[in-house]
């Protein structure tokens, strides 16, 4: 029974990691290419979830909702890039943090104004309902496996996009020297809008996928945003590969900590105490890991050269 539990928990960690990767990939891309700290990334995640919930309940199709989440998040992302973010590239990080924090408040209250404070209903599509058997006698929720699959597809897709396409070449060039590629005749502001919209779409996709699993409500993006920042700091800012590795580390460490720490502590102290202390320690664990990694690799595991 223990092996089945262990496999299930590893998959849980992987699923959390993959979901964090969808968030962190956009965040790190935007930071790497444009040098912008975007706190409003969590709001784009929320917009994706809301768009999916609204369209899914209106049409009855989760898949249309998923498309709507991509379109809505990319659209809102492009809109705020043109309207607000564009004015921030030359400013320092504090101004960027302030302005994007303001965007969080505006988007959250806007969503509350439109949809109210009560959580919306979004269910898993029929096709992915239920659980599948695991080796070792356990069972695992099919939908979570699907999220892992989506994450792997997105990771491969992003790799191909950045390594093999003209757009990817420009993104890499923009990361290393933005004046030079502007001088070479690349329309840098369109490139920035496209990258921002791409990051936003990934966040929206994550929001929609997770929304069906959790609850779709105002403010759902901010807790994830904090974890996504931990991921990109561990992985190295600006590196997609780092985001993937960092996300999986954070997902697995967090899940395993929550599951193993209380039972480990129970060996040395009374059960009631062990569960409370274990729960408290588990919630700190990823930050401890982050501090350790930064102590040995101050710019993260796969820091992009800059």
């Amino acid at each position: 029974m223990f092996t089945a539990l262990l496999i299930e928990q590893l998959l849980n960690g992987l699923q959390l990691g993959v979901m964090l990767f969808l968030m962190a990939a956009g965040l790190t891309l935007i930071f790497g290419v444009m040098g912008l700290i975007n706190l409003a990334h969590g709001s784009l995640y929320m917009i994706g979830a809301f768009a999916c919930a609204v369209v899914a309940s209106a049409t009855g199709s989760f898949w249309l909702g998923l498309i709507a989440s991509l379109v809505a998040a990319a659209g809102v992302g492009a809109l705020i890039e043109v309207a607000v973010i564009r004015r921030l590239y030359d400013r320092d990080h504090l101004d960027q943090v302030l302005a994007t924090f303001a965007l969080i408040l505006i988007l959250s209250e806007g969503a509350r104004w439109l949809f109210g404070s009560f959580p919306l209903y979004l269910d898993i599509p029929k096709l992915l309902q239920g659980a599948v058997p695991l080796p070792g006698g356990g069972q695992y929720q099919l939908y979570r496996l699907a999220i892992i699959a989506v994450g792997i597809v997105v990771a491969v897709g992003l790799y191909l996009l950045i390594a093999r396409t003209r757009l990817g070449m420009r993104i890499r060039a923009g990361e290393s020297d933005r004046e030079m590629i502007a001088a070479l005749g690349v329309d840098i502001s369109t490139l920035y809008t496209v990258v921002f919209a791409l990051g936003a779409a990934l966040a929206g996709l994550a929001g929609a996928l997770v929304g069906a699993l959790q609850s779709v409500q105002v403010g759902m993006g901010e807790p994830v945003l904090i974890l996504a920042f931990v991921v990109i700091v561990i992985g190295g800012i600006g590196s997609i590969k780092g985001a993937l590795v960092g996300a999986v580390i954070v997902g697995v460490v967090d899940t395993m900590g929550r599951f193993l720490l209380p039972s480990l502590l129970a060996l040395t102290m009374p059960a009631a105490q062990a569960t409370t202390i274990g729960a408290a320690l588990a919630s700190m664990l990823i930050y401890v890991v982050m501090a350790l990694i930064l102590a040995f690799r101050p710019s993260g595991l796969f820091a992009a050269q800059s």
Partner: protein
Amino acid sequence: MKRILAASLFGLSLATSGLAYAEPVKIGVITTLSGGGAGLGIDARDAFQLAIKQSGNKDIELVVEDDAQKPELAVQIAEKMIQGDKVDLMTGIIWSNLAMAVVPNTVAQDVIYLSVNAGPSALAGANCNANYFNVAYQNDNFHEGMGEYANKDYKNTFILAPNYPAGKDALTGFKRYYKGALSGEVYTQVGQTDYAAEIAQIRASGADSVYFFLPGGMGIAFMKQYAQSGVGIPVMGPAFSFDQDVLPAVGDAALGVKNSASWSPDLDNEASKAFVQAFKAEYNRLPSVYAAQSWDTANLILSALSKASVKDKDAFRAALKAADFKSVRGDFTFNTNQHPIQNIYVREVVKDGDVLTNKIVATAFEKHKDAYAEQCGL
């Protein structure tokens, strides 16, 4: 001109201060109106405002502020209300960790606080206070009801709650009356949204039932994930995990689940029927337990205001303690520690047309008292 007006108003207010309810009364309402716990606070605020509006009492002024479910923010707001707005009464806090941050300091400044929801055990026993009235419950109560009821069907239960004062009270309360074994006891983070790790533990635990206390968005996330996990062990909980604020988002996964509360929309008494009707007419949704408790709090305040002046603290406290109002929960009296003595019911989630709601199926306790009243010196 302005000064004359002000002077004459002042004179008028002096002249009428003999009449108990003609003086202005300021009530500070601190509650959660944003973030994952907002549904609870909004229901409490809406019911409170509706009760005041229906009473037609024009002398009551409400100061409503959002605490965003953050203790540090709640403390600041409370300080501002007491020092700046000079409120006479305070109420509204939903979460026990916020209540622990605000209430002791508030009652120490001789401001009367009436709880619409949070009832941490630390404020019910030795640290009870003459200025603190809990109109909702002591935190353990609903869970005690479900623990008692669970004895009927289950022998081996997995229990789960968030790691904060109300979570610990919840599991303490459940264990106080539950006679079966515990196959696991887990505390999760407040505000946690992914329960995959806990669900895996439940699956491996060999339990015959699961008891969980996860209010607001936490419960929605847990139930949706649990229903899809294929675990299939029966769940039960307090009303907080299956109330009107979360049922629409959980969907049919909640159907048939038993949960415990002091009130249910189908409770058969005049005050309750009138409340449900008025709330539905005003807000076009069914009220939750949070709304019912808040409605009772407002009506308790109104009943006390008709008897005594809020400036005469002793008389006003006595008027509150008499609990001379029509509670939607039927019989309602205060225990010595100023926490309710009330019935605890077991409800079942049912579908009424298209709407998921609760229906009473049993009474777990009649005239139930909390376990801490004896330690209170009042």
